[in-house]
């Protein structure tokens, strides 16, 4: 009676309301005071009006921050001897490695990207040397001409954060990240070395995204542990990992990840990157069960786009459990945090006086996407079951803890001197990552990736 026809008109009405300030502003009223501001305002209004018109259709304002372009990206490619196997000189057989295909494509993507204003490319020998895009692309495709002697990872990281760190810009480092400490006694200090290097310039908003890939490898392999041999010639029968590290201020790293590495193949991990809250809502007509409804005061208005986070339960027992689904839109997050396996392992539910637990985590299907209900807006769903609850309103939180993904441990080896047997692993990778995590996260108070506060209350 009060709602249906009116709600259809609502978008139009909104557009009209948004147009109004463009046509008639407070400045018009002020013009009484003797200014000739009124003339300016009326002149400006035709420009403002069309700009305001499309805004109701566009996404909420948060997207503007996400789409704003980065000022600069510096791409660093390590060209020491240990990288030669990834970029063998093209022989008569004209074979190339997956590293060459992937990195060449990545460099091209960066060079072409509209989300970064300025792109610079460097070869890292003893220190970074400026290259043009074409030069670096040629190096990747045709092999390293003059391999540099090994450069230590901490030294490179130190240089990057000290001299190339800028607001609204990121540094991308492509390397095998094999860090050979001087002797076996120095192995326990790998973490500290990395921490100190990254902390050298004392950047408080430092963030690092690590992308792990593997590639076939055709050349000499220089193991970090030289117990068996200093180099393994004509290596390798196994794939060798290499990494793309994105280093910079947290906000810039997040935006670079979203713009260029959204669909990155391989593995990933993120350190110190902050994400804005993911849109979420309870869904009262999607796989729900039991006697509960939205506890919000204005739930009956069912405004378009409204989200709900309060569960009012009228009856619950072991025989009559309540099940509700929380829809989340995780599109803005990196692929790692959209991965169902990672979510299933790391999504937590915390509550008081209740046995509420997560029953299942699942992704959007063609059916949910095509639905006319609110579930169509969400990419991921968490189903929660309750059979017992407190006598009054209690908070309930869905949290994605910042847990390190499993692959880092799996890709780590303590001894790479016999790499063909060890497989596609990197020496002391988890120690390197420990070093990164020590700089980017506050170990006392680990912030979760996201947390969605809900309220569980008895129905009134």
């Amino acid at each position: 009676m009060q709602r249906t026809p009116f709600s259809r008109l609502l978008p139009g009405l909104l557009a009209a309301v948004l147009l109004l300030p463009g046509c008639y502003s407070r400045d018009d009223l002020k013009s009484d005071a003797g200014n000739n501001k009124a003339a300016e305002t009326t002149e400006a209004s035709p420009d403002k009006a069309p700009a305001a018109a499309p805004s109701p259709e566009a996404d909420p304002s948060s997207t503007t921050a996400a789409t704003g372009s980065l000022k600069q990206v510096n791409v660093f490619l390590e060209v020491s001897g240990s990288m030669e196997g990834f970029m063998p000189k093209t022989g008569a057989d004209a074979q190339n490695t997956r590293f060459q295909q992937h990195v060449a494509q990545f460099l091209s993507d960066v060079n072409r990207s509209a989300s970064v204003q300025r792109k610079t490319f460097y070869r890292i020998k003893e220190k970074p040397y400026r290259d043009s895009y074409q030069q670096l692309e040629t190096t990747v495709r045709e092999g390293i001409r003059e391999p540099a002697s090994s450069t230590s990872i901490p030294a490179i990281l130190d240089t990057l954060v000290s001299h190339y760190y800028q607001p609204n810009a990121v540094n991308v480092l492509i390397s095998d990240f094999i860090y050979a400490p001087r002797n076996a006694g120095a192995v326990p200090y790998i973490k500290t070395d990395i921490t100190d290097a990254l902390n050298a310039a004392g950047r408080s908003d430092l963030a690092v995204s690590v992308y792990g890939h593997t590639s076939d490898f055709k050349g000499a392999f220089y193991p970090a542990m030289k117990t068996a041999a200093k180099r393994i010639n004509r290596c390798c029968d196994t794939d060798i990992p290499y990494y793309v590290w994105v280093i910079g201020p947290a906000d810039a790293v997040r935006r670079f990840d979203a713009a260029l590495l959204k669909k990155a193949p391989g593995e990933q991990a993120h350190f110190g990157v902050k994400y804005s809250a993911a849109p979420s809502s309870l869904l009262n007509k999607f796989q729900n069960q039991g006697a509960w409804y939205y506890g919000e005061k204005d739930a009956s208005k069912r405004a378009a786009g409204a989200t709900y986070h309060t569960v009012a339960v009228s009856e619950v027992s072991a025989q009559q459990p309540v099940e509700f689904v929380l829809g989340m839109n995780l599109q803005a997050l990196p692929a790692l945090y959209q991965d169902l396996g990672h979510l299933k392992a790391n999504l937590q539910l915390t509550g008081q006086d209740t046995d509420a637990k997560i029953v299942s985590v699942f992704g959007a299907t063609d059916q949910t996407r095509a639905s006319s209900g609110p579930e169509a807006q969400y990419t991921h769903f968490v189903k929660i079951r309750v059979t017992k609850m407190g006598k009054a309103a209690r908070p309930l939180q869905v949290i994605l803890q910042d847990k390190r993904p499993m692959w880092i441990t799996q890709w780590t080896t303590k001894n790479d001197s016999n790499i063909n047997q060890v497989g596609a692993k990197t020496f002391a990778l988890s120690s390197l990552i420990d070093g990164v995590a020590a700089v980017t996260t506050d170990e006392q108070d680990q912030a979760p990736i996201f947390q969605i506060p809900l309220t569980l209350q008895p129905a009134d």
Partner: protein
Amino acid sequence: MQSFFRFLYELIGTPQPPADTPVYRQIVFPNIGLLNLGISLALVIIFYYLINRAMGVATFNKLRHWTLFLVLNALIAFIVVVWQAKAQQVTDHSYIYWLATLNAVYGLLFYFLFSVILRKGSTNASTTPF
């Protein structure tokens, strides 16, 4: 007001499916309750004051005429609920028809009460229904 209608209509149990509870309590119950009262009052006024006083019709004051209006009122009360359920886009459920039946019963009641209160003011039907 909301809590009064909520009491009235939740005598047959809470709304089903539970997810629509806020819509029923805050929109559907007040709407159908007020409409029911208003329509019952209107029919009573038409019967006693329009037909049997202002228009001076002399052949429409028997019990069966009063009953005709009574049943008409109940029918309207029933239809109002089904229409409201559709208009508010609540989920289809047999509860809608239970609620409609309850509203029809309230319609009978309201019509009877208004009749008892207002019949004295009629010239031709002041003794209908008794």
